[in-house]
């Protein structure tokens, strides 16, 4: 363990260490010389374009994509135009900025995704230099053109090109420049000879870094920190100025005594750094410069590439990859030689304990006396997080665990969590996976993004294992992975639809949160419609199937799925979509096979489009409904002629529907209408539209007996109806003589009790009595009672020897009818 500090280099207050991450798996013949290299932060992939300027078509440059550990992911010859700059987006897509201003986007596996252009004028003036940068808005691209103009795109996913104002006096490209993101604005800081300018949307302002010695010379290299907070400027006299990027505060100025412009300048900080420092790289030298005047120098043999990280700098060479970082304070405390920090003592105590030495107790006692045991454990756990070497991690964690035993009230959460996270980190750092993440980076990036990255690199089993191990709820964990796996699976062209569908179903099963319709949508995007349909079958929620089916133009299927779902609104959505998409005939035919959809559409048409309704019935040869439609329409029609012609159509349709009854009824209605019209014209009777009964009533009321009679005969009105009608009408008009005549015209089909009752209703007892004698014997008692003739009723009842009738009479008798009551009682008794 004593070796841990061996690679520590002091600089001012802090120490810097360089740890080897990988021996690179790649085998690059010419090293990184003459290549465009882009390596993404957070242990991202590396893209390499060799000899980008070789223009002969016979030997095209090769674009290679490697994982951070150098495992080849993709490699293909570059067939497009000359590339100025490579860069990675936040979602691990490769941007290739070409000389003509077009930017080609490839995914991690080297397949082309899309492209965009940085503006038309660039085609002429050419891109001189480009930078890919990351901001809170996403990934952006900045270029400077041959006409010395800057163009920015702050977010390539929402492309808005901004051409920045002209820089006074700038010819060709500036000596150096960076993109800054400040106050939600993206600006360019550039130096042109001795001048320094800030270029924003509207203006170009000359600025001067505070405290830069006048003799420092002009700025030839600059660098902005990972968080855009700090700025480093390197002048041609070898001065390195560091300060805050808003150029209002200076941190330090170091004379590097190198007048050659460094190839790369990168900030090397970490959150809660002890001091800000900058790493500069020349051909054979790597220098770390901090606030103090001191520097650390590392010789380098190979050409390298520096990648700025959140908490350090990765140094990639053709042979290996190292991480240069400030040693975290907690690690310093523990590992610094002769440190008496509680963590250091605890580590020591544990070491002694393993050796079964009683010194362990002494150390422990010492910590305990200061009541720092909790702090000691915390320190060990935290330091373990920062260590890259598993064995160091282990010894720290063991020490922490040992210390924990002597504590009562100590929450194990932090310990457990760190253990788990370290396992995950160690797993992804594996050379075969190649994500050299530090714990700090991991925390910043979140587990969610890590799983996404793993998924993106198609490490599905690992991602699932990690999710399970960290007990992420399925919804956010395993299901997400499966979803991506399935989306990827459906793109495998060498497998049959059947095989893929089965494979997906077996793996995904009914994991919560995995939407088969999303997977199907992916399949459809890849042109595998059949597969998409097969996958949709697994989708439990019909509502989810429908939109995609519509998109795939499987409208029939969409319709039946919608119907199956039982969600009528969904059916309606499909129907209205179909209505606009299909021609009428097909549309109707489609509906015809779906009664639910059809009735829904009919319902809509009834309210909105009457004409369509007709077409609908026509198409179906539904004569009955068509006829009904005409009848309905006839009531909306004001003019008689129109009405009659509609009714005639109804008759025709009823006939076709073999509904003779309705046909006849409608014909009669037409006849009636004509009749009414005639009378209306002749007598102004106001009959039009009345029912037959009402017409006859009206006629009788008007005294038009002859016409009423005519209707009665023409329309074969049942005798009973006519007699009732006439009886009522005459009684109401109090035409008693006429009524009597009528009663004698023939034998009443409704009997004569009706006469009695109607007369009584009109309060004419006299007339009523006339008809009592005509009433049939069965009803005679009723008739007598109706006119209030108790005597007569009693006589009739006794005559008929009918007990219940006698009782009925009795119930109507009052006390004053004593004799009658006696008579009835006697008769009743006699019968018994």
């Amino acid at each position, binding site marked *: 363990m004593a070796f841990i500090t061996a690679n520590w280099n002091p600089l001012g207050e802090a120490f810097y260490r360089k740890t080897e991450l990988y021996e690179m798996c790649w085998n690059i013949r010419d090293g990184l010389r003459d290549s465009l290299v882009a390596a993404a932060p957070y242990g991202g992939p590396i893209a390499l374009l060799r000899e980008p300027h070789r223009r002969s078509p016979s030997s095209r440059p090769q674009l290679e994509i490697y994982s951070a550990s150098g495992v080849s992911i993709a490699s293909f010859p570059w067939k497009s135009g000359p590339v100025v700059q490579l860069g990675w987006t936040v979602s691990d897509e490769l941007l290739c900025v070409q000389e003509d201003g077009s930017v080609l986007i490839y995914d991690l596996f080297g397949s082309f995704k899309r492209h965009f252009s940085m503006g038309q004028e660039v085609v002429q003036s050419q891109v001189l230099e480009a930078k890919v940068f990351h901001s809170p808005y996403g990934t952006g691209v900045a270029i400077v053109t041959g006409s010395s103009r800057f163009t920015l795109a702050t977010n390539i996913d929402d492309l808005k090109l901004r051409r920045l104002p002209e820089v006074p006096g700038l010819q060709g490209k500036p000596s150096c420049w960076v993109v800054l993101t400040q106050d939600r604005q993206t600006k360019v800081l550039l130096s042109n000879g001795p001048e320094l300018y800030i270029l924003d949307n509207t203006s170009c302002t000359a600025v001067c870094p505070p405290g830069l010695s006048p003799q420092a010379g002009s700025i030839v290299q600059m660098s902005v920190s990972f968080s855009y907070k700090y700025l480093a400027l390197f002048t041609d006299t070898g001065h390195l100025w560091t300060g805050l990027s808003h150029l209002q505060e200076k941190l330090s100025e170091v004379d590097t005594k190198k007048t050659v412009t460094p190839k790369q300048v990168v900030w090397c900080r970490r959150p809660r750094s002890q001091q800000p420092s900058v790493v500069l790289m020349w051909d054979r030298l790597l220098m770390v410069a901090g606030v103090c005047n001191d520097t650390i120098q590392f010789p380098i043999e190979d050409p390298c590439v520096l990648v700025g990280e959140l908490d350090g700098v990765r140094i990639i060479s053709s042979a290996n990859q190292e991480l240069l970082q400030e040693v975290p304070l907690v690690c310093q405390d523990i590992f610094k030689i002769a440190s008496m920090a509680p963590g250091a003592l605890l580590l020591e105590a544990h070491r002694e304990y393993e050796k079964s030495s009683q010194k362990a107790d002494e150390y422990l006692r010492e910590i305990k006396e200061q009541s720092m045991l909790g702090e000691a454990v915390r320190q060990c756990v935290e330091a373990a997080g920062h260590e890259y070497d598993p064995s160091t991690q282990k010894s720290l964690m063991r020490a922490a665990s040992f210390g924990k035993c002597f504590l009562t009230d100590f929450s194990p959460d932090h310990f457990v969590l760190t253990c788990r996270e370290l396992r995950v980190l160690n797993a992804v750092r594996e050379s075969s996976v190649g994500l050299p993440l530090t714990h700090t980076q991991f925390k910043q990036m979140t587990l969610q993004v890590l799983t996404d990255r793993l998924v993106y690199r198609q490490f599905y089993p690992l991602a699932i294992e990690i999710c399970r191990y960290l007990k992420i709820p399925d919804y956010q964990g395993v299901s997400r992975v499966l979803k991506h796996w399935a989306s990827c699976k459906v793109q495998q062209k060498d497998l049959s639809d059947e095989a893929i569908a089965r494979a997906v179903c077996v793996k995904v099963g009914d994991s919560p949160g995995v939407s088969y319709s999303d997977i199907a949508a992916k399949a459809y995007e890849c042109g595998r419609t059949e597969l998409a349909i097969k996958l949709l079958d697994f989708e439990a929620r019909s509502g989810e199937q429908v939109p995609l089916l519509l998109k795939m133009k499987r409208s029939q299927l969409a319709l039946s799925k919608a119907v199956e779902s039982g969600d009528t609104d969904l059916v309606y959505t499909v129907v209205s979509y179909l209505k606009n998409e299909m021609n009428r005939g097909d549309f109707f035919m489609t509906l015809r096979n779906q009664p639910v959809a059809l009735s829904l559409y009919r319902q*809509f048409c009834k309210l909105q489009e009457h004409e369509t309704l007709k077409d609908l019935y026509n198409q179906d040869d539904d004569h009955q409904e068509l006829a009904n439609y005409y009848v309905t329409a006839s009531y909306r029609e004001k003019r008689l002629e129109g009405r009659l012609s509609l009714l005639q159509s109804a008759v025709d349709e009823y006939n076709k529907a073999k509904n003779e009854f309705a046909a006849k009824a409608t014909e009669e209605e037409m006849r009636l209408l004509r009749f009414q019209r005639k009378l209306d014209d002749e007598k102004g009777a106001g009959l039009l539209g009345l029912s037959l009964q009402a017409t006859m009533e009206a006629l009788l009321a008007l005294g038009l007996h002859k016409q009423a009679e005519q209707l009665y005969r023409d329309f074969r009105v049942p005798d009973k109806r006519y007699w009732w009608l006439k009886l009522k009408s005459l009684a109401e008009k109090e035409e008693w003589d006429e009524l009597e005549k009528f009663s004698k015209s023939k034998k009443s089909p409704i009997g004569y009790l009706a006469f009695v009752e109607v007369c009584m209703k009109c309060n004419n007892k006299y007339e009523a009595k006339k008809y009592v004698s005509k009433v049939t014997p069965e009803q005679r008692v009723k008739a007598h009672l109706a006119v209030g003739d108790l005597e007569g009723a009693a006589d009739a009842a006794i005559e008929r020897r009918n007990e219940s009738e006698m009782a009925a009479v009795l119930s109507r008798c009052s006390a004053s009818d004593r004799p009658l009551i006696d008579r009835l009682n006697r008769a009743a008794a006699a019968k018994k």
Partner: protein
Amino acid sequence: MAHSARRDSPELPDFSLLKRLARDQLIYLLEQLPGKKDLFIEADLMSPLDRIANVSTLKQHEVDKLYKVEHKPIVSTSDQLCFLIRPRIQTVKWICDVANADKAAGKFRRYKLIFTPQKFYACDAVLEEQGIIGDVTTDEWAFYLLPLDDDIISLELPEFFRDNFLAGDQRWVRTAGSALHLLHSLYGPFSKVYGIGRCSKMAYESWREQVEEGEQKARQAEIGNVFLIDRDVDYVTPLCSQVVYEGLVDDIFRIKCGCVEFGADVTSSDKSVKVMLNSQDKVFSEIRNEHFSNVFGFLSQKARNLQTAYDKRRGMDIKQMKTFVSEELKGLKQEHRLLSLHIGACESIMKKKTKQDFQELLKTEHSLLEGFETRECISYIEEHINRQVSMIESLRLLCLLSITENGLLPKDYRSLKAQYLQSYGVDHLLTFSNLRQLGLLVEQQPGETLTVMESKVGKLVNDKAAGKLTDAFSSLAKKSNFRALSRKLNLVPKSDEEYDLRVPRDMAYIFSGAYVPLSCKLIEQVLERDGWSGLEEVTRLLNGHEFAVTGNNGADLRAKSDAKRIVLVMFLGGCTFSEISALRFLGKEKGYKFIVVATSITNSSRLMEALLDNHV
């Protein structure tokens, strides 16, 4: 009451929570449109809204003026208009007209449409078509359930019946499912769900879907069992004249949203009075379930008691008098007022109903139910039509005849229809077409006896493709089979025994002892058997679609056995007061408490009116 409870009935859950929820949501929605606004309310939402939030509540939330939706140009001057409407195309279209008229006049207003209980896609489609979807905001007021009484909850959706059963428009099914879901989440989990009918089954499935989508919280169940039933399972019951007091009042005066308006002839003054009819009304709650023949006697007894209570005043000293006035008098006065109203209503009913005509009408109905003297019944109906007694009543009798006789003979079918058309106009051809489609008024297939029909129907039902039958076939399948059902379930008690209506012995008392309502009998049987086993023949005759599902969390129920005896019965397509009375009776007999949830309260007239298609 004439009969007493078999044992302690469980307590009913408190449904006022439903009202509070609805009110809070409405207020929230109104607040979404800050500032003064005019509120337009769909006509048939007025009464339900009144039960949820009164005018002053609305005014508190900056509602300026209230209007009824009348499909006419508006006069409002407010620059913010809020519409509280049902998701009906006509209404939405009218709003489009209003907005477009404003546009044409260069007037700028904000429009907010609140659909209740939910919005349909068709509404959006209309808004889009009329080009105002960008000018309005829409919201949904999830006001599904209005508690009308302690044990009656209504969805207040009378159009459910026609839309679903006649037009085949199943949009409301999800509404029913959501209503059930709401009840389930507040008073569930249900341990057992039974049901019969296609719509019931769909509503059940829709509810299950919603349960699975949402999160489940374990809670103490207050309602244990649920029974879903389609109106088209039993048309006979709502077609009969109601003779239990509450039903009779509904038939004659029309109870609207739990409230009835007694006209001048009842109040014996020149004003009409609106009365809430529910269990809060002490007098009404005692007579609502009684056969009408008992009501008058009961009321006069009550009047005598009241008099005695008043008479107590005599011989009181000052102190006693003081307590009497402060404590009892108000109650007595209230009771007095109600009593006189109900006596007035009774007199009015007697005038209308106890005449010879009504007796004969009832006799005819009973004959139809028993299947006796069919010819006499037909001629009675004929006369009924010829004398133009009542358009609706005649239609009802025709339907009752058809349904009990399993269709009319072709000759009768034609002649009765012809006469009806002569009486009420040929436009009723459309009405008849509707009735035929529903199987309410159909022609017997020539040469087919009942049994042949039955077996044929049975075969059709067993056929898996039954759902896809064409209209013609399905109307065939909709044959009522009433006679066979009546025999199987013993719906018509033997008529030779005297039935004492004062001491009812079964649910038949609600129809003077002549008929046990089919719907309620099914409920009784299923609860008794805990499922449909043994009722296979019956369900076959009823066209199937029955189900019985046990919930997965039966454990919760052991804790509170009371919940098991609380049965929620949901009538899809409406329910009559007679059925509610019958269920209350059944509950007393068997120790259940029934909660009736209906898409609306219906009766024979409403049922028939829903199927009319004349354009008068």
